[in-house]
């Protein structure tokens, strides 16, 4: 897909993320908005192989949303790809819906249960080890939150994946610099973040997490079969990206706009989506 189409997809997803959460009156919007370009690049940029009509296809790539609270983005992607009907997004967190506030494998396209932080990288490492033992060529992509990297289990998994040369494992850190209530560097600093991953033996790419070009280049380096270690993409992002009042502000982790602010937000996102839609049609 060309860049304009990717831009439009991102706008399209942002509108659906916010619309879904506002309709439900619940949801982690800011943590979802920060990884929209990561999701668009991975799922629409030609890097991820999957069959929506056959979710359990053995040779599919696996995606683990380790920061499970960012699921609004993933739900919007899966619905758009055809894993389930787009109308189902309207059931998000309503009684009886499959689409809970954190994802589980009863949802087509979701590989594992997540929501408790620090689990996804280890599960991904296990999947990759299994694939290696089977001589399979599918890859596993794991999206981590940066606050999540305060969990010790992430570093156990990082050491394990490096030791076993799991080159079929790609971790992406949504480095939005915010945890649930405060800045990561204020709470328990992660820097020097890149050096930490390097010291654990990973191939590291630090990119602008809202740049399709930079994200594509980073994903591309895993497509070449010349490396012998796992790849981590440290994607510098802005939490709440796309809604000015929310961007980089700690209090929006699990808070929704209301009243005129909500109306204005939806209107602006819809306008952006329409604008880009017209542009690509021209």
């Amino acid at each position, binding site marked *: 897909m060309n860049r304009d189409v990717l831009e439009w997809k991102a706008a399209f997803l942002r509108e659906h993320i916010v619309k879904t959460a506002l309709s439900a009156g619940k949801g982690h919007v800011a943590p979802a908005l920060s990884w929209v370009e990561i999701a668009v690049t991975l799922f629409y940029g030609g890097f991820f192989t999957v069959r929506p009509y056959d979710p359990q296809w053995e040779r599919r790539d696996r995606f683990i949303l380790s920061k499970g609270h960012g699921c609004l983005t993933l739900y919007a992607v899966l619905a758009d790809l055809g894993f389930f009907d787009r109308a189902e997004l309207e059931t998000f967190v309503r009684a009886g819906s499959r689409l809970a506030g954190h994802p*589980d*494998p009863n949802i087509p396209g979701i*590989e*594992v*249960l997540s929501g*408790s932080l*620090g*689990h*996804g*990288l*280890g*599960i*991904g*490492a*296990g*999947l*990759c*080890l*299994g*694939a290696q*033992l*089977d001589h399979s060529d599918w890859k596993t992509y794991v999206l981590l939150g940066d606050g999540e990297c305060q969990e*010790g*289990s992430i570093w*156990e*998994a990082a*050491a*394990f994946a490096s*030791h076993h040369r799991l080159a079929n494992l790609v971790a992406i850190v949504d480095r939005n610099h915010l945890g649930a209530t405060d800045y990561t560097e204020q709470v328990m600093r992660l820097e020097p973040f890149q050096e930490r991953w390097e010291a654990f033996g990973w191939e590291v790419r630090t990119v602008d997490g809202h740049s399709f070009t930079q994200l594509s280049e980073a994903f591309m380096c895993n497509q070449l079969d010349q490396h012998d270690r796992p790849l981590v993409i440290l994607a510098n992002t802005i939490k709440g990206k796309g809604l000015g009042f929310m961007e980089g502000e700690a209090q929006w982790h699990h808070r929704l706009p209301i009243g005129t602010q909500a109306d204005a937000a939806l209107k602006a996102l819809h306008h952006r989506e329409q604008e880009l839609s017209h542009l690509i049609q021209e």
Partner: protein
Amino acid sequence: MKDFRDSAFDAIHHILKNDSRLMVLTNDMGAMGLDSIRKDYPAHVINMGIAEQNLMSVAAGLALTGRVVFVYGIASHMTLRCLEQYRLDACAMNLPVILLGVGSGLAYGADGPTHHAVNDMGAMGSIPGLTLLNPADAFSTSAIVEWAYLQNRPAYIRLDKEVHQPLYEHGSLDCQQGFSILRKGADLVLVSTGMMVHRAIQVADVLESEGIQASVLDVFRLAPFNSEEILDAIQHVPVMVSLEEQAGPGGLGSRLAELVVDYALPVRCHRMMLPEQFFLGTATRERIHDQCGLSLEKICQRVRDLLENLRGGRILSRNGLAVSGAK
């Protein structure tokens, strides 16, 4: 005689001959039986290092690729150390990750409370869908390992460190039933699990010489608890005594007490277990059992007192003794 651990690994070794999906992971623990498997199937044994949280997540990931994963380590470290990873990554997705926890109860007595597994049955037994198994001898261990493998779902198998006299012969264990009636007697029923089953048999022997006939049940599957059939086995006996090397809620005594309440059984249920405390210092199994009333002599005396007080129609306290001042 084989110990529990070697029996477990012999069973796994045997399964591996026919099923290449099987993997064994360990947190840097060794065993002769494991070495033997590693020699024949090097790609199927992985030392995961001392990182139990990651171990459980990796085990779940491997299980997602169609493998059955046995995880071997010290019981206390295999359970409470990484409870969240095992609960969510393996159990919530119903994956065949089977824990082999060596050192159940106070088997590592002198090594201190870091190595005691005396609350694990309650903690693990509270996980939905987990099969909790607690064999009492080497034969039942291998039968239980084979059965757990065939179930293809999460299971926790507790392994004692000591060598115990065999209780079973080949083919005599019914894992589907989950318990065995080892002896029948009309005066009381001793219900036990794991290594304490041997103590229950000793108690029954002593009581028999005094004219008291005791049934002995070995409940080797704590979860799912076979309430209905255990109910059939205990309901015609007026007194039930549970014996376990476990503390707190969720153990055998807890489950039996729930049974008594849930089915309104007219049976006197008396639970003998460890107190809820950390056993600091050189707490050998023998010493703690004696201190906590779980030695052969003390159990026998408590049962005699219990029966005596019941015959006298006295109101009994939790420890089976008559309440002071009450008739």
